[in-house]
């Protein structure tokens, strides 16, 4: 009997943590009970991208997109939709805008998906990542077959060079050029490394690719191996990504079984071996020289460049290191050609970019858009705008190495050069949206705290300098700042940028510098007026009850410091000398009567 319906349950980390594995099992159980097991199949895919609405279930061939599915909903979907063909409307995804809310849209027509262009994520959420046949069914391993049987290594490098593909890990170095720099002066071993040490807070692009389409990384690494004459590859992935590691290892095993890794691939005599190496989650190990030290079993610390890894890399041998997303573009470029890739994106940034959208945004999740798409399109059209009707304030791109962009930059087309010109970076693709309730000094402090923790300690500017910067920021948020601190902060930042050993230190001051540039007034408010305009920095604010108070007593009951007094149905008061500023009253107030000043 032929299969008439396929049920895809999102199996990305986000949905898995809200029970999508149990949902899949419940589907299997219900389908069996209804006697449909020969007509309907269920499986877990990789990330669908719309994490905000997870767990996500898509039913084919109707292309119905169910959002926020619970285990208890599964029986209804089976009995109504799968058995009788009645779509369960209350569970179907609805758009954010009022005029579109009632419309039932199929998966591909949803605003979130219709505006995307997927190359790196083309299989994520579509295929079963645990089944190599499904990857092959979407023309997987054909690019590897093509290069091995009909292209010379130089032709492969030329094609990537012509495509204009640039590194998606952050710096944007042209991938083809990286491959062409590999030293061929002797016949000793060379290596290909995939950098899957994704460490920016709020970034999960690489994890999604490894979880949703692990074979694309394997295929691309074998292609890279052929191009530079390497027979060994390593995927350096963090141990905090257990699902990605599991699916990658499973995929590597399947590729060996099919003869797509190992000796004499496609009978061409080319051999390529691959293994996953786990990192312990140090941010600095995303820096390529520190990463190689970690693979060698040394402490993960960077070293001076040159010599570049292409000349002296892993075990002192020529090595190329590419990021997961960069590699995920390679097979498509080989199959569809550099000219095709050139038609997408801007003049100097070709192709697409995957972004992990987070923070104060309606559609938290993963998306892929052509380079040159504006921030506004990403945040409002795809991301669905800011929740609760709040005002957009800033967007942070590039994580701890990047900077904040403001409302004035919303119409900037996103590419490497535009973002750099604005004092931020493309980075690996983390995009954190902030609204009027975010304090920019606090945001800068958050990222700096991260880099202070993650500095490896090898060079002084980064180890000591970032810590001194943090001390100044702490002084400012405590209300003890002076105007000369702001000058000092800037001088220190410039000095650290110019003198640190590796990318971590060279970019660590960026969040502070960009907020100083774009939100100087907010720093001044902290220093001169001793006020935090967004009402975030604890030592600069006080909680007050306004006349809106209805005297329900909820704030009083929830106050851990017993700082609130007041009779039922009468206006309550906060004793600011006992108040510990935990915000419990504000969170619990049903009428928004509590404010910070």
């Amino acid at each position, binding site marked *: 009997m032929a299969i*008439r319906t396929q049920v895809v349950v999102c199996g990305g980390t986000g949905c898995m943590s809200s029970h999508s594995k149990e949902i899949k099992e419940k589907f299997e159980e219900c389908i069996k009970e209804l006697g449909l097991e020969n*007509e309907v199949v269920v499986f877990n895919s990789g990330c669908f991208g719309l994490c905000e609405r997870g767990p996500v279930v898509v039913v084919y061939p109707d292309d119905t997109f169910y959002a926020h599915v619970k285990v208890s909903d599964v029986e209804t979907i089976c009995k109504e939709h799968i058995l*009788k*063909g*009645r779509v369960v409307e209350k569970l179907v995804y609805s758009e954010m805008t009022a005029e579109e809310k009632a419309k039932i849209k199929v998966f591909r027509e949803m605003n979130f998906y219709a505006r995307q262009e997927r190359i790196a994520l083309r299989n994520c959420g579509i295929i079963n990542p645990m089944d190599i046949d499904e990857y092959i069914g979407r023309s997987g391993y*054909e690019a590897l077959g093509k290069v091995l049987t009909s292209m010379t290594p130089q032709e492969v490098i030329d094609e990537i060079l012509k495509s204009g593909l640039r590194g998606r890990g952050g710096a944007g170095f042209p991938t083809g050029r990286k491959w062409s720099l590999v030293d061929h002066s002797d016949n000793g071993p060379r290596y290909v490394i995939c950098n899957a040490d994704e460490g920016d807070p709020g970034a999960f692009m690489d994890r999604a690719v490894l979880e949703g389409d692990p074979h694309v990384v394997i295929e691309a690494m074998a292609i890279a191996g052929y191009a530079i004459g390497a027979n060994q590859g390593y995927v350096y992935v963090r141990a905090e990504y257990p699902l990605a590691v599991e699916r990658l290892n499973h995929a590597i095993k399947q590729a060996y079984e099919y*003869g797509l890794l190992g000796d004499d691939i496609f009978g061409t005599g080319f051999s390529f071996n691959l293994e996953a190496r786990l990192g312990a989650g140090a941010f600095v190990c995303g820096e390529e020289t520190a990463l190689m030290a970690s693979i060698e079993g040394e402490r993960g610390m960077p070293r001076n460049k040159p010599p570049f890894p292409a000349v002296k890399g892993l075990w002192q041998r020529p090595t190329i290191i590419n990021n997961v997303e960069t590699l995920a573009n390679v097979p498509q470029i080989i199959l569809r050609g550099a000219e095709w890739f050139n038609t997408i994106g801007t003049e100097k940034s070709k192709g697409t970019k995957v972004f992990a959208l987070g923070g104060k945004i309606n559609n938290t999740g993963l998306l892929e858009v052509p380079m040159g798409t504006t921030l506004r399109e990403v945040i409002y059209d795809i991301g669905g705008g800011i929740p609760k009707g709040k005002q957009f304030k800033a967007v942070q791109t590039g994580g701890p190495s990047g900077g904040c962009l403001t409302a004035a930059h919303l119409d900037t087309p996103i590419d490497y050069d535009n973002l750099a010109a604005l004092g931020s970076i493309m980075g690996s693709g983390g995009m954190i949206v902030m609204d009027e309730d975010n304090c920019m000094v606090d945001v800068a402090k958050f990222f700096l705290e991260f880099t202070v923790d993650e500095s490896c300690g090898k060079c002084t500017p980064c180890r000591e300098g970032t810590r001194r910067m943090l001390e100044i920021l702490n002084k400012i948020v405590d209300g003890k700042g002076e105007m000369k601190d702001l000058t000092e902060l800037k001088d220190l930042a410039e000095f650290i940028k110019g003198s640190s050993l590796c990318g971590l230190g060279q970019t660590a001051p960026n969040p502070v510098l960009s907020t100083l540039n774009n939100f100087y007034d907010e720093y001044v408010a902290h220093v001169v007026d001793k006020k935090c305009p967004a009402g975030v920095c604890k030592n600069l604010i006080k909680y007050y009850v306004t006349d809106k108070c209805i005297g329900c007593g909820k704030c009083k009951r929830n106050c851990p410091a017993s700082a609130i007094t007041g009779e039922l149905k009468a206006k309550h008061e906060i004793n600011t000398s006992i108040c510990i500023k935990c915000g419990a009253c504000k969170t619990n107030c049903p009428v928004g009567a509590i404010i910070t000043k």
Partner: protein
Amino acid sequence: MKSLEDLKKIREQAAKKMSIRDEKNGYRVVVGMATCGITAGARPVLNRIVELVAEKDLNNVTVTQVGCIGECALEPIVEVYDPQGNRSTYCLVDPKKAEKIVEQHVIGGKVVEEYLIEKFKK
């Protein structure tokens, strides 16, 4: 696997299994599968159509089920929408008639006049 031929074979098989997930713009065949339809024998009809579509590699055809179409006495009902959206409603369909609908209408593009609802209702 030792050759591109082997890879192609796996690809074809897998693509066939996955084609249900592809975007389609060809014929759409809808089978009424509410309680009335199921009781009248819509399930074997649906299964026969799905099998035929798979056998004949009709990758651009969507086969799906729908709730009550509203003519319970004439179930099983199969509706065929052509790519332009024109609807033909077939009544009292059994697996044999379903085969003819697929062969003549979905593949051949010619409406099967004798099963149309107009023949049953005056």
